[in-house]
């Protein structure tokens, strides 16, 4: 098989001869061929560009047992070649098959070229880059609800933009809502906290911070290490139950929004209440590690009650 291909790829082969040679190719191998009056002078570059292309990566997962006819990009053979495949891409006549001989490594990995497109190294790199961008775009499409149905780059981007704006507006709205909901929680210490906070612990306090500046971030570290990561279910139950709390001095009203810096995970998980060693009081904490999405603990309930 490879022997058959080699002559096709060598620049020496005249187009007529390659055509007949192509006809002789058995359909059992899925091969992507560059359509080009003159083959690229540097097959290694083609190889590299193709490997880096998302296209090639995606297609390597395909089983070699699938046997569409070799996708000949010669005008006459186009339809016949395409018929074996279920997929059909409409865009610019770009062939839809994405099969590559992933397992049987051919010396030349072929990048699919659009009809009439140049395949010099420049455009190849361009194409590979564009494919990467397309892949990212698809990722975004999946992320944004309702986006996968939309076709057309501009419209998809529209949706993405709308979604981002929507989320940002949500944050604004919820901030206002939180501000309005309970005037008894005093957020005046926030500015103070932001200046005094270190980046290590990544904590954020919304609340009275007379004690904030006194709290040494480093001393707070052991507090965090005590704070285990609680079970999602556990936390859900705790929202309905009311845990008895030790006394909370009035000026210790603090709520922390902690998001773990070092944690590379992607979900939220609420924390538990921890003893603040420095202040000697129970500090209500709303700590969120990006681990599992759960309801925040209900400790603030307690302290609000005590305020009454």
């Amino acid at each position, binding site marked *: 098989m490879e022997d058959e291909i080699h002559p096709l790829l060598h620049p020496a082969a005249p187009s007529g001869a390659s055509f007949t040679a192509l006809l002789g190719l058995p359909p059992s191998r899925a091969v992507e061929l560059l359509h080009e009056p003159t083959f690229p002078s540097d097959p290694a570059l083609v190889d590299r560009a193709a490997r880096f292309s998302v296209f090639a990566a995606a297609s390597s997962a395909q089983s070699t047992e699938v046997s569409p006819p070799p996708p000949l990009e010669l005008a006459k053979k186009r339809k016949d070649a395409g018929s074996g495949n279920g997929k059909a891409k409409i865009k*610019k006549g770009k062939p839809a098959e994405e099969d590559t001989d992933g397992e049987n490594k051919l010396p030349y990995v072929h990048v699919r070229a659009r009809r009439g497109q140049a395949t010099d190294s420049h455009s190849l790199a361009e194409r590979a880059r564009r494919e*990467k*961008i*397309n892949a*990212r*775009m698809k990722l*975004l499409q999946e*992320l*944004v609800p309702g986006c996968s149905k939309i076709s057309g*780059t*501009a419209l998809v*981007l*529209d949706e993405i*933009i709308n*979604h*981002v*704006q929507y*989320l*940002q507006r949500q*944050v*604004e709205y*919820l*901030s*206002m*809502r*939180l*501000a*309005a*909901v*309970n*005037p*008894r*929680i005093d*957020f005046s210490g*926030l*500015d103070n906290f*932001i*200046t005094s906070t270190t980046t290590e612990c*990544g904590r*954020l*306090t*919304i609340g009275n911070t007379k004690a904030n500046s006194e709290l040494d971030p480093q001393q707070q570290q052991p507090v965090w290490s005590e704070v285990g990561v609680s079970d999602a279910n556990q936390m859900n139950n705790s*929202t309905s139950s009311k845990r008895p709390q030790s006394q909370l001095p009035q000026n210790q009203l603090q709520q922390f*929004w*902690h*998001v*773990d*810096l070092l944690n590379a995970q992607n979900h*939220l998980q609420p924390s538990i209440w921890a003893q603040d060693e420095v202040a000697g009081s129970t500090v209500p904490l709303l700590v*969120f590690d*990006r681990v599992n*999405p759960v*309801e*925040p603990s*209900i400790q*603030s309930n307690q302290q*609000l*009650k005590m*305020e*009454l």
Partner: protein
Amino acid sequence: MENLLSNASPHSETLIEERGKRIKIAAEVGLARSSGGRLWARALRRRLHRQRKLPQQACIVKNSTPPLMKEVPLVADVAEEKDEVEDRVRALQRLVPGGEEMEVERLFEETADYIEALREQVGVMRALACLLDGIESTDGDKL
């Protein structure tokens, strides 16, 4: 008891707005810190830092259109299509913190992560709001 409840002073609206702004900043800090490694998070932190020091000027900086728009070569081939897409990419660049300095590929990556982080942040805040709402109503009953 009623005194506590009527904590709301006559100019409580501005107070709430003010609080709201601070809460929003808090939320953004949390957001930025949750995804420390990301470009958008770093840019957001830089912006917040600036806001802290020069609240007014920082606002202006944030809202102005950036002087330099990087030319962003895109996927679409047709000229008109290209323009449309480019416009949107620029809009996206403005939305995502730090987006103006990113090229398309990176921009999309960062956008995806930004969207995820935003979603989580919204979830947290919403849960908190519901929680506090619940508390308020229960306390109201008891009073």
